[in-house]
């Protein structure tokens, strides 16, 4: 396992990921929450936190919540994205059940090199584009790996392109770990991508749910569905089945200036 300066141990990565997930779900990461999440004792957590703090990845005062630094947030995001990409592969492509996929993803994500992961990510996207049931040629995939586009005449010429965006300088990971439907009231963030096809997608975009738009989750209906979000200055409600199509990036608090107006 990588041990040199600048590289994180597997255990540290797990902690960062746990803290990130806690913040995604409920915005609060205290030592005891982390302990519960990782199924370890609180002293273990305290020790790990101290280590992470010494690397400048978290900030923690005794008896207060644990916060990720900018650096820590970046790392955590990458780790979480890796995790969900691997999980997507196991579930979406290999057909594993969620619990199994979750467990195995935890193991795999630490074992593979970043380059390998990148290829795995691309493969997952490639399969996504097939729409699940179209036959595809591995050669098309290899071509794509090398050139970044699909060969002319392949079945994919007609499908919507990848969200690479390197042309305009965005360096966003192609799969985010969070969907709008997973969030709790109070979560704030930025829309990353709106997937899906047809009327739902069009309707979402018409109502202002477009990439890079800021939003905040206001509440969930008493029966659990639909949810209400504040976006572009007004309140919008949508079913979780519709919110599923919206991939988001969370703004974990204390690193986003709440009063900075994106207008």
């Amino acid at each position: 396992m990588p041990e040199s300066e600048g590289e994180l141990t597997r255990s540290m990565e797990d902690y960062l990921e746990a803290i990130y997930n806690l913040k995604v779900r409920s915005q609060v990461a205290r030592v005891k929450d982390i302990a519960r999440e990782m199924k370890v004792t609180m002293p273990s957590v305290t020790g790990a936190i101290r280590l992470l703090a010494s690397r400048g990845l978290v900030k923690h005062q005794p008896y207060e919540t644990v916060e990720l630094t900018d650096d820590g947030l970046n790392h955590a995001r990458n780790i979480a994205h890796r995790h969900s990409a691997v999980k997507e592969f196991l579930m979406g492509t290999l057909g594993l059940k969620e619990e199994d996929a979750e467990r195995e993803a935890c193991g795999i994500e630490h074992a593979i090199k970043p380059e390998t992961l990148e290829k795995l990510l691309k493969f997952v996207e490639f399969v996504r584009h097939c729409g699940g049931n179209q036959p595809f040629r591995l050669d098309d995939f290899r071509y794509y790996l090398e050139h970044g586009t699909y060969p002319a005449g392949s079945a994919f010429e007609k499908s919507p392109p990848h969200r690479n965006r390197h042309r305009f300088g965005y360096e966003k990971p192609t799969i985010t770990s969070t969907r709008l439907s997973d969030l709790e009231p109070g979560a704030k963030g930025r829309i990353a991508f709106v997937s899906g096809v047809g009327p739902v997608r069009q309707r979402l975009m018409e109502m202002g749910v477009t990439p890079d738009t800021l939003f905040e989750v206001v509440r969930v209906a008493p029966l659990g569905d639909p949810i209400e979000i504040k976006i572009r200055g007004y309140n919008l409600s949508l079913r979780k089945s519709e919110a599923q199509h919206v991939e988001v990036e969370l703004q974990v608090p204390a690193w986003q200036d709440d009063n900075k107006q994106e207008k």
Partner: protein
Amino acid sequence: MARRQQAREIVVALVGNPNSGKTTVFNELTGSHQHVGNWPGVTVECKEGTVRRDGYVFRIVDLPGIYSLSPSSQEQIIARDFLIENHVDVIVNVVDAANLERNLYLTTQLLELGIGMVVALNMVDMAEKLGWKIDTDKFAAFLGVEVVPTCASRGEGIEDILVKARQAAECAVCDPPRSTRHHPEIETELAKLAERLQLKAGSAAFVRWMLIKSIEGDSAARKRLVDCSPHGIRALDEVDRTRKHLEQIFGDDIEAVIANGRYGFIGGLLRETVKYTQPINKRTVTDRIDDILLHRVLGIPIFLVLMWLTFKLTFDVGDTAKQWLEAGVAALGAWAAELLPKGPLASLVVDGIIAGVGGVVVFLPNIIVLFTIISLLEDSGYMARAAFLMDRSMHALGLHGKSFIPMLMGFGCNVPAVMATRTLETREDRLLTILVTPLMSCSARLPIYVLFAGAFFPTRGALVILSLYVFGVLLAAISGKLLRKLVFSKAASPFVMELPPYRLPTLKGMAIHVWERSSLFLTKAGTLILAAAIIIWALGALPWGVELGSEHSLVGYVGRALQPLVRPLGLDWKAAVALVFGAGAKEIVVSTLGVLYSTHENTEGLSAALRQAFTPLTAFVFMVISLIYIPCVATIAAIRRETNSWRWTIFAIAYSLSLAYTMGLAIYRIGLLLGLK
């Protein structure tokens, strides 16, 4: 002899988001000079009105509230088609000043059409309260059109709209509004396309609009493009090639790119013209009210209380007024009976026409009260919250959150309930709810249950009646799911819905709304009900001389003819006759039975007679059938009015008839098998 001056007509299309106050603007502009119809072939309503000013006649068409001109909903298709197919002199775009970003999305698309335009910046008072200062002149300069600040609920700015609209209409040709600029890459491609395709259409702006929409995949625009280009259908290949090229460049599909472009333009506009003196995400009054009304624990109970209130008001207040009306009609009938010599004419007038008219008018109190309440709920913004609360349970039944209210009202009377489905936004949701609502056991069926339950289940009467209600609800739930899968299998339309800020409704708006609904009911439904009443009277009164509704009348023959049909259900021809009359109005079933068994008003006697003719099992079958079999004529008329289609009305009738028959048969046969009697 004075020469009559020919007033010049200006066609105005009123366009804007739902909840932008567009309807209030329309009401202020046209007052009572408006009339409501249906867009041909669909359930969406079409409102038109006229205003006369300075020798001009403004013909104002209120298009449905829409968020965009893309064809993602029927309302949007209608609006788009109207704007490009018809001759429109000027567009008045009503924009909610307190909600600019999203409202302007539609504005940017309207600008692209190249039609003369005026923006009515509505609810400026709200914007001010939120601490926003809008520089109207800069705003207008940016957009290239006239902008009129208005506060429609107070009637401010309305005259200004007319003035500016006239100006815009007159010089639309000379000075088309400026279009939004998309990303330079897109603009270049558009220019290249335009040249290559050599399009011949109205204005340069319209050509541009066609190209943009064709690239986005709008089928109407594409069809127009094919018509306007000498290349014909091959023009579309060029369009698609451009689309692919653009998608490669941007790495995203074209709808997203263009949508972002529009919002980018809007962002720039707002940065230049609006100053925010208060933080953007300040909690508003609406937010605080919602914390209570949409509370995790309190939300639904509060809603149920409101629903109970609605129900009580509609049917208690409504019924008292109903009783007066019924008494009035009866008095009228009695007076007419005295006046006219005995004979066919008297019978026709009294038992046919007056009773028929009475049968129509008697629903008015309920309708008026219900629609006052609904209008209050909708205009204040609460209706959206109701849908939000109920959606999960309704959606599980294949319905929409907003289906709850019509279905609840169905327990009182199906007629206003069916009319209340108007609040549903999509055609599929509306149709499905209309089909399912009559299964809610209305109050007119109660006398039937009371009679039979009293006669056959004296100790457990209440339980039996309750079971019927529950059965109705279960059937509705199953029908909802079934019909959704089989008939409305097209993917359910999106729920994505705005929760508008709470507003105080205007009395004028509510009054106009209730008036519309009631007069529509009287004219459209009323004629049908009257016709049916006369037919039923004829069936009961002929051949001449028989006692009304007895076995010797035509209905009697019909009943006897139906006997073989109802035998398998354990029923006889008298039951069949009563059921036939029940199609007219469910209340009549009991009195018909009274006539048939010659006991008339004598309930004791009737119960005894029924015990001779029915068994507990067949009594139950009869009750179930009267629950399901056919909506009363008034409901059928309401269904016809709301669906605007005979096809669906007949489907509704056929569905309930077949469902009733199957259920009745099943219950009878299974009952026999189980050894019940």
